């Protein structure tokens, strides 16, 4: 599992690193002052220790191997005044401590960026300390139970053989076992006792009720037998039961912890910086998470809107695709509401931050998301389903055994001994491991392929899905425009358009710049919001933008086309040239959808974008069922309709408008670049630019489900063999120990097969 790479310069995912590097360098070149602003915003995250040392935790992106870790630690340590730079390769967190002012944080991040890594401050308040404490205490409980099992088992083997053991020696051994087992059960059994007590208090049962009962009864019975000098004691079984079950618990906990950390890392990497306008008019950079409702913020052209807000000054074009799914920018004026994640394209704006409750659209979205999540919480995990069946059956069996033996032998001790033996041997050891073992292996496999599963039950739900609903913009497509009629444009026109475009972040301009490649930028470019750009190039006025803005377009050169949008360039008095643009699907969108259909999934498209665009995309990708111009509520309605037809849907989307659908769908997925609400609502996060993660996710989920069912069958099979033996009174401590460890091993090994699939 651990890849060790000794060579500094070699990185197993070198390609990604190179891309990251290129992206970062271009971003750096675009705006150096952004870096200064980012540095200023780091200051609130710097912690000052009592001894005067400064410390910051940074999330690192782009580091993939031990070589990167060593490089980062070495280079950062080499900076002046740094006391310690230590990177955690498992969580991708870098802790740096230094002496001096807190402003040094900026220099550290700058150095990291020069090295080709992204770094964002980590908000320590988000750290799931409770979860980590829980994992630690489970680990300790597991260790205690393991050690006690080893000790008691060593003595038990002697007792089982017993041929040369006198009664006194045997009783002494039992007493020693009791002295070890009682404190162990009291310590290691707590997670189960607490959960069982909680369930009983609410007049419910869960898997922990029979577990607690079996452990406590086994210990009580063994103490009774020891006091009376009888040959059999079940101390070993009680402690081993705890040990094996704690392994399952711990695996489950680790899985949740790991995915929680990754989701958090994604959120931290996307955290943005806002330019706060202070009361005296000066502008200060602060982390977006520290903005309060009512704060005035400055959003420069090309910047992402850091928090939800309302425009109070200026007008500009806004890329709203993250909220509405529309590819084309929209003009926004004073009073318009903007949502975090939208991009301000053409002119600086001043916005006033809004509270979520103060806005109808966002509060509606969060209300719908909550409703959806509530619906989802009704989902019953397969292990709990098994427990619901299991608990009454086992307890009835034990009761029947007791009654049967009372009638048969009339001896209270024999009857209770056999009834307790039934409880011990049917105790869901294998059942407790059956599910978590599989889910840990499966999500580990997915994790390596860049698919992040948020919880174990997400895997279960994913496996049952039969219909997949895609959002268009940002999910099936990249969400950015591309020049579609490159062949019709003269090289001269393209190069001139590129001169005007390279400095702008408007989607059209970026498409032109991408088509033309890198090159020079024209001077004195004038940008007219919602219209276009113009500049003077070698004495001629060049205009690039909407038809009405450029002018001089005759009927025959214009006309309706199937392009999503078009822009015109006019050099001097010459005839304008038309540029057509389209939002193109992700590279592997078509193959992914073909593959999914081949596997028998119904594929649908639901988008907030215009009908003509949706139709084109659907045709191109071979999707038969599609709906366009749907609102978030419409998306929900369509999902409900599918549900009422008996379909289980997987919703894949990225925009704010998809969040309610993601929350209420049977299962859901988001690309890593999705809006915060959507990413939080989704069960699965697809990292990287590819859609094929969907296929990997559903296939792995299906494999995992198959293993879970196999494991549960194995556990049932084991019980079918063991129960008659117990009911008939043939169980002794040795058989109980063998049966328990044997079935647990079998289940774990079966789960591990998934790894080599």
């Amino acid at each position, binding site marked *: 599992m*651990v890849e*060790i790479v000794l060579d500094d310069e070699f990185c197993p995912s070198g390609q990604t690193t190179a891309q990251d590097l290129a992206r970062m360098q271009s971003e750096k070149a675009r705006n150096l002052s952004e870096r200064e602003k980012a540095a200023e915003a780091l200051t609130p995250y710097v912690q000052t220790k009592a001894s005067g040392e400064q410390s910051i935790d940074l999330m690192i992106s782009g580091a993939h191997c*031990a070589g990167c870790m060593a490089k980062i630690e070495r280079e950062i340590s080499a900076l002046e005044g740094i006391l310690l730079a230590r990177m955690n390769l498992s969580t991708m967190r870098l802790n740096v401590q230094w002496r001096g002012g807190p402003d040094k944080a900026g220099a550290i991040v700058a150095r990291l960026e020069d090295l080709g890594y992204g770094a964002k401050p980590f908000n320590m308040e988000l750290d799931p300390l409770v979860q980590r404490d829980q994992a630690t205490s489970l680990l300790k409980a597991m*260790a205690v139970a393991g*050690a006690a099992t080893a000790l008691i088992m*060593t003595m038990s083997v002697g007792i089982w053989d017993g041929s040369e053991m006198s009664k006194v*020696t045997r009783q002494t051994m039992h007493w020693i076992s009791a002295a070890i087992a009682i404190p162990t059960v009291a310590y290691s059994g707590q997670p189960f006792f607490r959960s069982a007590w909680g369930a009983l208090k609410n007049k419910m049962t869960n898997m922990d009720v029979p577990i607690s009962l079996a452990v406590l009864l086994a210990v009580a019975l063994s103490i009774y037998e020891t006091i009376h000098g009888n040959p059999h004691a079940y101390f070993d079984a009680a402690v081993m039961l705890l040990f094996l079950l704690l392994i399952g618990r711990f695996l489950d906990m680790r899985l949740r912890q790991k995915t929680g950390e990754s989701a958090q890392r994604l959120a931290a990497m996307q955290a943005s910086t806002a330019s706060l306008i202070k009361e005296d008019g000066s502008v200060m950079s602060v982390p977006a998470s520290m903005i309060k409702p009512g704060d005035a913020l400055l959003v420069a052209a090309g910047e992402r809107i850091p928090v939800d807000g309302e425009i109070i000054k200026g007008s500009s074009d806004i890329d709203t695709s993250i909220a509405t799914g529309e590819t084309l920018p929209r003009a926004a004026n004073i009073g318009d509401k903007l949502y975090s994640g939208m991009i301000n394209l053409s002119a600086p704006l001043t916005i006033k931050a809004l509270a979520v409750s103060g806005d109808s659209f966002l509060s509606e979205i969060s209300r719908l998301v909550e409703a959806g999540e509530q619906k989802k919480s009704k989902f019953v995990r397969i292990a709990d389903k098994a427990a619901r069946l299991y608990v009454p059956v086992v307890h009835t069996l034990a009761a029947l055994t007791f009654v049967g033996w009372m009638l048969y032998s009339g001896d209270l001790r024999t009857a209770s001994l056999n009834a307790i033996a039934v409880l011990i041997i049917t105790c869901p050891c294998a059942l407790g491991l059956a599910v978590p073992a599989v889910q840990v292996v499966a999500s580990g496999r997915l994790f390596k392929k860049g698919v992040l599963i948020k919880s174990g039950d997400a895997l279960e739900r994913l496996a049952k899905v039969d219909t997949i609903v895609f959002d268009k913009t940002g999910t099936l497509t990249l969400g950015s425009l591309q020049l579609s009629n490159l062949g019709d444009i003269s090289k001269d026109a393209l190069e001139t358009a590129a001169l005007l475009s390279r400095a702008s972040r408007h989607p059209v301009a970026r498409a032109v710049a991408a088509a033309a490649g890198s090159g020079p930028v024209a001077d004195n470019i004038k940008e007219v919001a919602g219209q276009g750009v113009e500049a003077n190039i070698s004495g001629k006025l060049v205009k690039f933008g909407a038809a009405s803005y450029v002018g001089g377009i005759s009927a025959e050169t214009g006309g309706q086309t199937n392009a999503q949008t078009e822009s015109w360039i006019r050099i001097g008095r010459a005839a304008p040239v038309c540029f057509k643009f389209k939002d193109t699907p992700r590279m592997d969108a078509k193959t992914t959808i073909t593959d999914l259909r081949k596997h028998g999934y119904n594929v649908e498209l639901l988008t907030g974008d215009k009908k003509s665009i949706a139709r084109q995309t659907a045709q191109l990708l071979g999707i038969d069922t599609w709906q366009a111009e749907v609102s978030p509520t419409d998306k929900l309605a369509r999902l409900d309709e599918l549900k009422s037809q008996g379909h289980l849907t997987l919703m894949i989307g990225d925009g704010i408008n998809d969040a309610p659908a993601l929350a209420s769908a049977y299962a859901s997925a988001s690309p890593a670049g999705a809006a915060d609400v959507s990413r939080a609502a989704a069960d699965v996060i697809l990292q990287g630019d590819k859609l094929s993660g969907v296929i990997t996710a559903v296939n792995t989920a299906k494999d995992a489900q198959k293993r879970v069912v196999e494991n549960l069958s194995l556990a049932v099979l084991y019980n079918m063999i063991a129960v008659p033996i117990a009911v008939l009174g043939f169980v002794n401590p040795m058989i109980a120990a063998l049966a328990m460890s044997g079935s647990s091993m079998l289940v774990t090994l079966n789960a591990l097969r998934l790894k080599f699939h």
Partner: protein
Amino acid sequence: MTSLIYLVPLAIAICIVGLLAFFWTVKSGQYEDPQGDAARMLYSEDKPIVDEDDL
């Protein structure tokens, strides 16, 4: 059988020592970065080992 008189207490003592050692490794955060630690030991840096708790 007389050997049990010291062998059993010895076994228990060894077990307790092992357990305490394990508790210490948990407390000192040795399981927090298994990947990084596996790789880190292969890079020899000529610097004194710094105990994280002291910082």
